[in-house]
């Protein structure tokens, strides 16, 4: 089921942007601080924090209307003072640095090269079960960013079962001012064993703009909608090979924890889950390990279950879970009620 709708944009006052001010421009009227004095203050305490700048100058503390500008100038001016070459640059300018021959050749090549769309390879788990739905949300609204140069978005969604079987591929086109909400779990639950209360598949999400524009705000988000509540997180790029870590607590009376592990590679891979690990629990050699073999583009839902001995050793102290993968992968942590009627989802 797919819903696609168009809505109007709401916008308010003109967004003025920030330009480099004149030296005598007042930045904080309450503290009588102009831009020249601000530059001087930042230069004098260039190793110190934003709070120290406020304390030293007295700016931003009375009506606080200038705090946003002060924060911006503080970061920009510090970037100038901190540039490795020691050259100072103005607000909004890139630090001037001597470029190596390689950098100059790359710069020239980039300047004559045709632009191609940035389309990161994102993978998400699809969770299906009784009363559990997974949705993908892609939005292309400007709202307050009304001067953003926008382009229609093309999103390709490819679904795989947990066993790595390619199920469907859909293409969405989202115009500026539109959003797409697509339900993804139905194909996954079809054909899965009835005995399983919860099953997992995966989706590869590739979104790109149709012509050069500004990226704006919104990464696609996926939602797990369960009988008593929903949760959501933005899509995330592939990681690995290597280790992914989570820190959790052992609370098996109140919740169930699952790792949704996706093999983003086109070949089989072996994955090792080790727990509990430091900081204050058990060392690496005595951690409990589970080994999984995932088909190409397959996915697994591994419940986090400690043995009684490990659970006693850990108590309520947070412990680490290490997921060691030999190829490209993505792992999400799901925390559910015992009855699986409410979830939260997080990425490392």
């Amino acid at each position, binding site marked *: 089921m797919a819903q696609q709708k168009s*809505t109007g944009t709401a916008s308010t006052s003109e967004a003025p942007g920030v330009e480099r001010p004149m030296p005598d421009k007042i930045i904080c009227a309450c503290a009588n601080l102009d831009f020249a004095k601000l530059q001087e203050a930042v230069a004098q305490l260039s190793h110190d924090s934003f709070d120290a700048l406020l304390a030293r100058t007295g700016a931003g*503390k009375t009506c606080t209307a200038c705090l946003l500008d002060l924060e911006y100038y503080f970061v920009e001016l510090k970037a100038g003072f901190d540039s490795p070459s020691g050259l100072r640059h103005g607000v909004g300018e890139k630090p001037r640095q001597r470029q190596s021959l390689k950098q100059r050749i790359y710069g020239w090549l980039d300047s004559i090269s045709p632009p*191609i769309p940035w389309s990161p390879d994102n993978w998400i788990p699809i969770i299906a079960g009784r009363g559990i739905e997974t949705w993908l949300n892609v939005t292309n609204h400007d*709202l307050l960013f009304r001067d953003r140069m926008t*382009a229609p978005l093309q999103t390709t969604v490819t679904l795989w079962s947990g066993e790595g079987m390619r199920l469907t591929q859909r293409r969405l086109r989202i115009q500026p001012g539109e959003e797409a909400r697509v339900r993804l779990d139905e194909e996954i639950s079809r054909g899965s064993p009835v005995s399983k209360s919860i099953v997992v598949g995966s989706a590869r999400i590739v979104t790109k703009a149709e012509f050069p524009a*500004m990226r704006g705000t919104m990464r696609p988000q996926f939602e797990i909608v369960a009988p008593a509540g929903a949760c959501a997180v933005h899509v995330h790029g592939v990681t690995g090979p290597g280790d992914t870590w989570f*820190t959790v607590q052992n609370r098996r009376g109140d919740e169930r924890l699952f790792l949704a592990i996706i093999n983003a590679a086109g070949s089989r891979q072996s994955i090792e889950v080790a727990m509990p690990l430091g900081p*204050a629990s058990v060392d690496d050699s005595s951690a409990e390990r589970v080994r999984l073999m995932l088909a190409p583009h397959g996915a697994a839902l591994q419940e986090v279950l400690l043995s009684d001995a490990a659970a006693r050793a850990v108590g309520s*102290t947070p412990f680490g879970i290490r997921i060691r993968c030999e190829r490209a992968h993505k792992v999400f942590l799901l925390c559910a009620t015992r009855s699986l009627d409410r*979830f939260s989802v997080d990425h490392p």
Partner: protein
Amino acid sequence: MAYSYMIPSISSVPSGYDCTVVAPVDRLGPYLIRGRGRVRQTISVYSEGVKVLAHEEVHEYRDSKRMGQPTAPFVWRDGLGDAAGYLENSFQAADGEQIFLTNAVVPFYAIYNKPGKKSFFSDNAYLYASPPVIAQIAKYGQYIDGYPAVRVDRERDYGESIIFINPYHKPLKARILTSHGSSIAGVRVPPRSARMQSLEPLLPDGANSWCGQIQITATNRVIAFDVKHSLRDPQTISDHEHLDPYRGEPTHFPATQWLRLIAGRWMVRHGLR
């Protein structure tokens, strides 16, 4: 470049939950010049304009490793009544020297739970100088944040709120608007305080449910999180997430840069770099 501090970070403290902070003190060594130094960690909890708790520890590092016994994680026990609060974590050189290689926030999660309730996890936010927020201020001169996956449903008891955190000395006013034209204006957040604003008033007239995108703007920078909870009992939280600020990057980049990226990945995969 060296620093005597790392930019402090903020975690929310919603009422009805204990909060366990697993700050990455064992991972700080590589952020120190020559892997050594003494670091003062300060954790402060604020609510309704008052610092209700302050905790301080000094950690010593040599050869990029923290010396001494493992530290117990900091636990905030639910005790703010119905009020929300926030927690500020900072790392500073104990002796005031410039010992840090970077002042960027070290990301970490806080774990929230209470007996009888499932946990949820949330990451920390920059107190100031967050790179995407600075890029956005440069582009628009206004603080704007957004979240595209709101789902409010009266029949299914799906509630949702924004937690606004004002770590500054003066009150601020925030506004929430939606992709269908509704808004909640005049959300007032007193200094050193947090407010949980329900999104139920955004439901269109006569509707029992709504899914869509929101944006928020405020008279000052505000730190905000989206919380999905039971509509009847907002202290039963399912999920707690950061918002998604403006990203000023272009949607396209030079093909030659893409080729370098592909070549780099190939080399890493084959152990050549």
